[in-house]
């Protein structure tokens, strides 16, 4: 997620590292690269202009700092400005004092409204609400069925009428049904429409005027290009948007659309979609997104996730082991199992600082969930003493382990090599060279 942008920016900052002073030429050189990186990330050109202008004003004005390297200084300005752009604090969903709260999902075709509606319903349900989904997309064939199937999966009632109805009558009847059935949140899925299709935009206005939604959420595909600005602007001026749901963030799109949309509407991004399943919805954290874009990794996100899923004691124990370097394959296995509990591995990896800097092959290796299963099988085929002391694994043992895990000895070799490499890396990380100490400890080796 965002790693391409991360890589780009990371490269630029690396170039600046180690120089003594930040000159105007330096700033210009960096900003040229930043500009191109942002454009390639699909941030709208006008937004990029505004952005680089502001950074330049600030950076050149205070060019020489003694406490920071030039690279760090630029990181600081770029980051500050990005944070500024993405908006300060964490966004919330507006809940009505007088239920039901009505949430209307709008957006282009294929942006992910129906899936996001179901995800949101599931999220609200987990927060103790009683949502109802209303199938007001009467345009796309089988959109109603899709919502019904999803509703069944997450056990949330779906209000639907025939596809020949008008959206307004469905909305009206849906709202009534929610009130009579005591649902405190109504999530209305609407048909995808082009922001320049006046007829359909008017239809949406009609529905909005009747149901008076507390939240109009615009669903924007994270892969959207320069046009994101026009889309957001049109929906915002015509319908009035309260927040953004950024979908398909689990892909490798650089996600510059997030910046653009935020910039033109001034409305917060409230949720991000990070997968096809109904639980793949996360609250958006602007500060984290910015850190992620900057290649600093989402340390916060990782820690938060880790806290929820990981046993605290185990983590402390692990940390001790890391520090004393008594980390065994048994611990490795333990961690693998913990990681698996935390969700799709690729989602997690994006949060790790420096991951975007890893060679492609290594990334592919780690990101492949099946590869992890293989590793698990190999370790499980070892005896406890082999796990504690891998040095004793000779050719014969390797053959046995491979047979037991359905792999070949080469796989076992590879794992052992990786284990050695991880151990070495940990030695460096925890070796305590004083100033270069990492501010955190990874709960698993890479």
């Amino acid at each position, binding site marked *: 997620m965002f790693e391409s942008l991360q890589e780009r920016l990371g490269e630029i900052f690396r170039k600046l590292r180690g120089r003594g002073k930040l000159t105007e030429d330096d700033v210009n050189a960096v900003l040229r690269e930043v500009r*191109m990186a942002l*454009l*390639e*990330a*699909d941030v*709208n*050109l006008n937004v990029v202009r505004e952005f680089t202008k502001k950074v330049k004003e600030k950076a050149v004005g205070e060019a020489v700092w003694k406490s920071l390297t030039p690279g760090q200084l630029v990181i600081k300005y770029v980051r500050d400005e990005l944070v500024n752009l993405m908006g300060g604090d964490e966004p919330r969903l507006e809940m009505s004092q007088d239920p039901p709260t009505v949430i209307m999902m709008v957006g*282009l*075709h*294929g*942006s*992910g409204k129906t899936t996001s509606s179901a995800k949101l319903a599931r999220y609200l349900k987990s927060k103790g609400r009683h949502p109802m989904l209303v199938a007001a997309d009467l*345009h*796309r*064939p*089988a*959109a*109603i*069925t*899709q*919502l*019904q*199937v*999803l509703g069944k*999966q997450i056990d949330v009632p779906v209000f639907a009428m*025939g*596809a*020949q109805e008008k959206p307004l009558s469905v909305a009206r009847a849906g709202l009534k049904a929610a009130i009579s059935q005591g649902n405190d949140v109504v999530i209305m899925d609407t048909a995808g429409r*082009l*922001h*320049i*299709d006046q*007829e359909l935009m008017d239809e949406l206005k009609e529905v909005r005027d009747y149901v008076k939604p507390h939240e109009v959420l615009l669903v924007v*595909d994270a*892969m*959207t*290009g*320069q*046009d*994101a600005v*026009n*889309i957001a602007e049109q929906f915002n001026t015509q319908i009035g948007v309260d927040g953004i749901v950024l979908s*398909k963030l*689990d*892909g*490798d*799109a*650089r996600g*510059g*659309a997030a910046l653009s949309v935020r910039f033109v509407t001034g409305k917060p991004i409230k949720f991000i979609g990070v997968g*096809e399943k109904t639980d793949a919805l996360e609250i958006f954290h602007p500060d984290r997104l910015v850190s992620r874009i900057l290649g600093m990794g989402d340390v916060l996100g990782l820690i938060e996730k880790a806290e929820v899923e990981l046993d605290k004691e185990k983590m402390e124990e692990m940390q001790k082991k890391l520090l004393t370097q008594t980390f065994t394959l048994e611990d490795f296995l333990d961690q693998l199992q913990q990681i698996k509990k935390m969700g799709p591995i*690729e989602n997690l990896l994006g949060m790790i600082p420096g991951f975007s800097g890893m060679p492609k092959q290594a990334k*592919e290796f780690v*990101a*492949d*969930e*099946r590869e992890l299963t293989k590793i698990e099988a190999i370790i499980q085929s070892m005896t406890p003493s082999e796990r504690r002391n891998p040095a004793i694994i000779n050719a014969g043992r390797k053959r046995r382990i491979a047979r037991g895990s359905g792999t070949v000895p080469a796989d076992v070799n590879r794992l052992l090599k990786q284990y050695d490499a991880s151990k070495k890396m940990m030695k460096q990380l925890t070796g305590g060279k004083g100033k270069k100490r990492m501010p955190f400890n990874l709960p698993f080796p890479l």
Partner: protein
Amino acid sequence: MWLFKKEEHKEEKPAAEEKKKSPSWQFWKKDEPEKRPEPKPESAPSVPEDIVVAEIPEAETETAANETAIEETPAVVEEEPKLSFFEKLKKGLGKTRDKFIGNITDLLPGRTKLDEDFWDELEETLILSDVGGMTSAKIVDDMRDKSKRGRIKEPSEVLKVLRDNLAEIMDKGDTSLKIPEGELVIILVVGVNGTGKTTSIGKLAYRLKKEGRKVILAAGDTFRAAASEQLQIWGQRVGAEVIRHNEGADPAAVIFDAIKAARSRGADIVIADTAGRLHSKVNLMEELKKIRRIIGREVEGAPQEVLLVLDATTGQNALQQARVFKEAVDLTGIVITKMDGSAKGGILFAISDELKIPVKFVGLGEGIEDLETFDPKLFMDALIQVEEG
């Protein structure tokens, strides 16, 4: 000039369609000047009532469950007014064109020489159309170079040179579908989530049916809820048999069954739908490779066409999508959808430039007829109008 050529078409059209004034800048091939039939679902005589293959045990219940949805479809189709089709295009593409041209011609007034500012602005205009930083730089560098060597002297010549340059990039040869006679043709349709694969398949099936082909649709998207139903409704609309399994079934098995069904029914073409998948998901791309392998194993030389459906609103990521899908399943063409919006689809230049995959179809709306063949030359002429002479 192309624009006038288009005007001629108008006269061939029946008077009844007077409002369907073909916009002079349209870039898709206008291959049917005759009156289009009402897009009511035509029932193919040879297609049996039960649209699910008999071998599938759940067939009966599945079909019954879908009956309600299917019944509603004629109404939907009829509600699409024929006139709004062209109006939509005009509005949508008009916007694209106005902005593109608008931006570029805005650069021209008051300029007497081609200085660095001019080239910078031209580059930014291209970037705003999603052409991408790298490709834009390449295009502009080339033009700047031409200008230095005296090939472009006046700012007014810029548009023409730009048009020719872009048209050259876009021209990747034959844009028609490969449909060899006498063999079973499999068209595999792939893409990320939400680009419009199923809709494009419906429209494509309609086109091919109109050409007199017998088409079978394979509901290979077994992942997304109700995706098979969606395809089935399209199948009803166009009168094409749909082979489907239950949700969660192996997509390769669905397509395998569709091929079998096509053979036994003597069909010409199988269009295989697949689940939307982000190209970055390794396991899902592996699944796609497997689907392709199985098609190749079952029918020699198949799939004859592997079409990537791209959303015109997508930015630079579309290039990566095309790259990865090409590597995985060897694309033969691109369908660019949602070109009736305000997105300009400039990423097509980058894709064409780097990957040499021809764009074959353009999606221009939700209606059954809103799919046109792509003509790169007309596309460029549509985007960049040049006053010649």
